[in-house]
């Protein structure tokens, strides 16, 4: 059974989190994500969960990490300036393998920038923003329905891989209202527990160790220092550090094609749009207006880890056009993976999204 609703994107994100069993939200007001905290403040007490307004975003992600270690599905939501403040903690979450969900309703940056306008300027920050080598998972919704669905998915991926999962949405989708179908229940992939006899940071075949929840009888010893499989620091051991960081990266990167979530349309086309988030909607309009199947479209719902094999779904492609609300952050990644095809970046700043006409003009221009 499902319930049909007409809902704001930020509210759908909140509903998705609650459906996924999120019982802890720590957050701080920031435009354009504040509605998520407000909805959580209203709904969490009724569900028996915890809503805490923290004193800033550093504290918000800190509280989320703490709650996660008690076994809670924990989340925070923010926008650019708050996301920047969270970076050290996010590296800590990667190093300690703490599952958590961080929603970033992106706005125009750098700095305070454009608080009420849309942008996708944090796409590389969520991948490379914290110091050291890390790998994380980033999901990008392009509809209110996907705000719900991908929030659920973010919790499952965070728990499965023991990483922070980012819902990298933006002001457009966050504040948009449209129809959404809410299911009575959703698939929940629980956190794996450590197998008897295994050390707390002893990885299994999938490179992910079981999660030793506080208070469940495990010898939990958690640190952001380079640690051995017992969880104790060995910060001057070169081999240990290299093996640990490689595992933290590889446990995600080696599964990138399995994690991938995308739509590939008109795969015979020579000119192909690659989009994520709001520009997906514009390209769909272009394809609707020009239904001759000559324009290809790859829509990515998960951009990190980047699923480069999806480019091979378009064997005749000569040109990839990448419209995004930044100066070409994902186009740069796509350029790393193409095999001779031209990559045209259609970066856009200012807060408004591409129009179908300008995208179609670009198709004509490159043809």
């Amino acid at each position, binding site marked *: 059974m499902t319930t049909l609703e007409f809902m704001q994107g930020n509210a759908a994100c909140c509903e998705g989190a609650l459906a996924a069993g999120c019982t802890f939200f720590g957050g*701080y*007001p920031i435009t354009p994500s*504040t509605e998520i*905290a407000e909805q959580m*403040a*209203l709904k969490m007490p*009724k569900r028996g969960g915890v*809503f805490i307004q923290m*004193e800033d975003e550093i504290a918000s992600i800190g509280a989320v990490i703490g709650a996660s270690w008690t076994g809670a599905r924990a989340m925070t939501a923010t926008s650019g300036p708050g996301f920047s403040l969270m970076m050290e903690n996010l590296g800590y979450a990667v190093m300690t393998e703490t599952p958590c969900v961080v929603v970033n309703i992106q706005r125009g940056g750098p700095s*305070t920038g454009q608080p009420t306008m849309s942008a996708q300027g944090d796409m590389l920050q969520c991948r490379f923003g914290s110091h050291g080598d890390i790998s994380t998972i980033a999901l990008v919704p392009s509809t209110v329905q996907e705000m719900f669905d991908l929030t659920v998915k973010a919790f499952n991926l965070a728990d499965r891989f023991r990483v922070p999962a980012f819902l990298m949405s933006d002001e457009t989708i966050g504040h948009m209202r449209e129809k959404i179908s809410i299911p009575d229940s959703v698939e929940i992939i629980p956190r794996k527990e450590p197998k008897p006899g295994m050390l707390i940071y002893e990885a299994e075949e999938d490179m992910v160790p079981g999660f030793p929840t506080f208070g469940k009888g495990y010898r939990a010893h958690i640190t952001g220092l380079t640690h051995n499989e017992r969880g104790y620091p060995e910060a001057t051991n070169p081999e240990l550090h290299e093996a640990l960081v490689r595992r933290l990266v590889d446990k995600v990167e080696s599964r990138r094609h399995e994690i991938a979530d995308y739509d590939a349309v008109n795969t015979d086309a020579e000119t192909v749009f690659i989009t994520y988030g709001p520009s997906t909607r514009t390209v769909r309009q272009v394809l609707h207006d020009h239904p001759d199947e000559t324009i290809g479209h790859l829509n990515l719902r998960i951009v990190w880890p980047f699923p480069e094999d999806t480019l091979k779904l378009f064997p005749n492609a000569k040109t990839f056009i990448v419209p995004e609300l930044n100066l070409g952050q994902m186009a740069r990644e796509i350029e790393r993976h193409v095999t001779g095809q031209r990559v045209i970046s259609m970066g856009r700043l200012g807060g408004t999204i591409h129009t179908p006409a300008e995208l179609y003009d670009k198709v004509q221009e490159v043809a």
Partner: protein
Amino acid sequence: MVDKSLELFDCGHRACGGCGPALAAKLILKGAGEDTIIVASTGCMEVFSTPYPETAWKVPWIHSLFENAAAVASGIEASLKHNNRTEKVVCVCGDGATFDIGMLCISGAFERGHDITYICYDNEAYMNTGIQRSGATPYDASTTTTPAGKLSTGNTRPKKDLPQILASHGASYVATASVAYPMDLMKKVEKAVNTPGSCYIQIHAPCSTGWGFEGGKTIEMGKMAIECGLWVNYELENGRLVKAKKVQRVPVEDYLKAQKRFRHLFKPAPLTDEIAKIQAIADANAEKYGIDIKLKE
């Protein structure tokens, strides 16, 4: 003495009608004078007073981030001092920026003893993002992140005593003021900027939009808060209480009833236990600062 006839915070800005913080800004600059550099954190005042071509500020003004006004001010002050310059450095920040996210930088600046005046315009919540609670939100106020309802009577904690915290840092001068008492406010600002070392002033600045009252009643609301003892105007010099405004106190009910943020305490039925808790806060303030006027028998 500064020339208090100078209008250094101009009219024509975009604040709501009856904005307490806008009035505070006007009075702050009258007290500080034109030889002042303003550091403003993110917040309502930053947004409503600055959009091109209508900036209200006739003195040098810098918007920092949400959390770092006191650190930016520290740098300005230390560099000015190094060059034997004497401009006054004044932070003008909201209560969210002061009580919550900016606390770390304020603590550092006051511990180092920079010669700055940090002024918080306290409208008792994050108003710029749409009325979320802050560490300055009073007990039981309904905000969008402390919504009153069946499971909640609003904000669960009383205001953080920030003046006392900063006095404990060794602040030279700490004062509270209210936009309802403009002469007192200007005098305190003038005193602070002329007192060496770190000074703090917290200004009660009623917000008609966030508290839920008619914009014409801002001054009335400020006065009511003082008359019931929920706000006290006082001065601390080197941590010692030197002055507090005395009042013939009235019960807190009328002040609470006048604002939508406390409406749930009276409708559908009065929550007498909760109102009594708020009265106890006012009573404790009166006791602590000795504000009750003793009537002659």
